[in-house]
């Protein structure tokens, strides 16, 4: 975002009078000082106000806080992984192809930014909560959907593997690669059915048991994934577009398979954009409060994530402990900003931030 240092000194007619310059610079420092620097310093001072021992104890000694940290470190990677897979495949489809509805698709990616986090959480409660659309089913025999979910994910991975390993040159295809695509889809459908039936026959999943999504970890993952959904795709699309498909086409013409092209050409080219998207997504996911608040039911030691733990400690007037947890998240924010400003040198100008 920063402009390069000017090679020629700015011309006089564009200079503001010195007093205007000083006033505005002073104002900028004052505003950012009061709005941003003072609060950040206050977090650390508040956390360490009773000494290092208390700080350490309130992070490690409190089992509920410890659990909150573990839970955040469980939920965030899952949501992040899902959004990275989505982001990469959406960016590939959008930046490399023209298809009807492409503009609409790009606009829809931004949708979660427009939805208030609380409303996002509410949506999942409406679907999976006790009174929700699937509530009754999940409560009586929720695990019955697991065979389908597992089979779907496995078949999807299989399909991706098949089509990306397949030689791109039709004449080089031998053996299993020789069949037209519909055979692969048919095989996938068959595999799906077999996997589902096998899991049901072997009773892999408990029967007649309540599958908790709301007020449990799956709900936290869903809410976090929803809120951080756009980050990776949004950062990757401009990077992929600016690089263009030439090197990928060259790799293909030299006989690379889809996977080889992706892994050896696309990923190294877009890695900074990918890292950039991931760290932004990660920062937001770790700190997400509203959506998670609604779906978690805030049960200490069970469904409290770090931001929820901050709130609970604040409600209990345990300010030093609350600030101690907050200091960890503030450190994360500072690291994110440092990495971000380093990465911006490697990237084309990215788009404006979104709420």
């Amino acid at each position, binding site marked *: 975002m920063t402009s390069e240092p000017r090679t020629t000194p700015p011309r006089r007619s564009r200079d503001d009078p010195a007093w205007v310059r000083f006033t505005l610079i002073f104002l900028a420092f004052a505003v950012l000082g009061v709005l941003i620097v003072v609060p950040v310093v206050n977090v650390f001072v508040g956390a360490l106000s009773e000494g290092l021992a208390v700080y350490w104890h309130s992070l490690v000694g409190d089992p509920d806080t410890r659990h909150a940290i573990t839970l955040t470190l469980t939920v965030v990677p899952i949501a992040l992984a899902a959004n990275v897979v989505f982001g990469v495949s959406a960016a590939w489809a959008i930046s490399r192809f023209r298809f009807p509805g492409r503009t609409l698709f790009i606009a829809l990616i931004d949708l979660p930014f427009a939805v208030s986090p609380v409303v996002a959480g509410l949506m999942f409660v409406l679907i999976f909560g006790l009174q929700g659309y699937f509530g009754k089913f999940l409560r009586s025999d929720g695990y019955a959907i697991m065979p389908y979910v597992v089979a779907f994910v496995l078949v999807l991975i299989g399909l991706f593997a098949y089509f990306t390993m397949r030689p791109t040159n039709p004449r080089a295809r031998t053996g299993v690669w020789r069949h037209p695509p519909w055979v692969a889809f048919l095989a996938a459908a068959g595999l799906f059915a077999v996997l589902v039936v096998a899991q049901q026959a072997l009773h892999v999943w408990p029967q007649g048991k309540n599958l908790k999504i709301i007020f449990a970890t799956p709900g936290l993952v869903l809410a976090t994934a929803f809120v951080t*959904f756009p980050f990776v795709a949004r950062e990757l699309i401009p990077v992929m577009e600016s690089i263009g498909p030439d090197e990928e086409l060259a790799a293909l013409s030299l006989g690379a398979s889809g996977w080889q092209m992706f892994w050896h050409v696309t990923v190294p080219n877009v890695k900074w954009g990918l890292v950039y998207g991931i760290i932004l997504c990660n920062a937001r996911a770790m700190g997400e409060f509203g959506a998670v608040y609604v779906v978690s039911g805030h049960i200490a030691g069970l469904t409290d994530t770090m931001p929820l733990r*901050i709130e609970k400690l604040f409600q209990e007037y345990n300010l030093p402990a609350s600030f101690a947890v907050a200091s960890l998240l503030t450190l994360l924010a500072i690291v994110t900003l440092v990495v971000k400003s380093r990465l911006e040198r490697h990237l084309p100008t990215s788009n404006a931030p979104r709420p």
Partner: protein
Amino acid sequence: MASVSRGVLPGLSLTLGLSVFYLGALVLFPIAACFFKAGTLSWDEFAAAVWTERARAAYALTFGASFIAAFVNLFIGGIIAWVLVRYTFPGRRLLDSLVDLPLALPTAVAGLVYASLYVKTGWLGRFLVPLGFEGAYTRSAVVLVLVFVGLPFVVRTVQPVLENLDAETEEASASLGGTRWQTFRHVILPTLYPALTTGFALSFARAIGEYGSVVFVSGNMPYKTEIAPILIVARLEEFAYAEATAIAVVLLVASLSMLVLINLLERRSRRHDV
């Protein structure tokens, strides 16, 4: 950015299929469920849920505070963008990265620290409370945190436009005898209007959905310092799902219209500055 014909690069159907499925399942289906649930209410029930006195007070505070905060951001964000682009001074890079902090700092942390800064014993409250500015557990507190969360949006939309501003029109204005203020007012400012409007809209859109920071600083008193997302949570905690959904739909419609508006604004300003 060459457009590529279908046959050459692999993976369109798989990647598009997967991403559309994921978008549908994670985003579109829940939003549809929310509207569908609200649709099960009769019109009278819906009106009764969204138009109570308490809800009206919450909307007034949500939209009012968001508007004031976005308006404040327009000025301070504009000044910060101007300073960052036009002047060189020690600490400029630092100032530039600080602007992004509200995007990276969890809202709960912002709420916690703002709540303790502006109380009577806080670092800033001990000077401001005697002066009559109560920056915690009041409506001003809500505006204050919304200014914090919305600040980067104005700066980051105005900054690139300022950087790409054409120097010659400014010089022409100066050589024709315009004062610096006249040049700013009549030459520079009009070219910034689209970016300023977009920044304002982004900041406003972010503010109307904000929950995490406000819940700490506002005190959440019904009719006084309760914003609409807090009211939704309050209704949920009473297990009044239908009412919560009705208010959520109002909020959702407002923020979706903001999204459409922002996209239109961005498209227009892009057409103008190329």
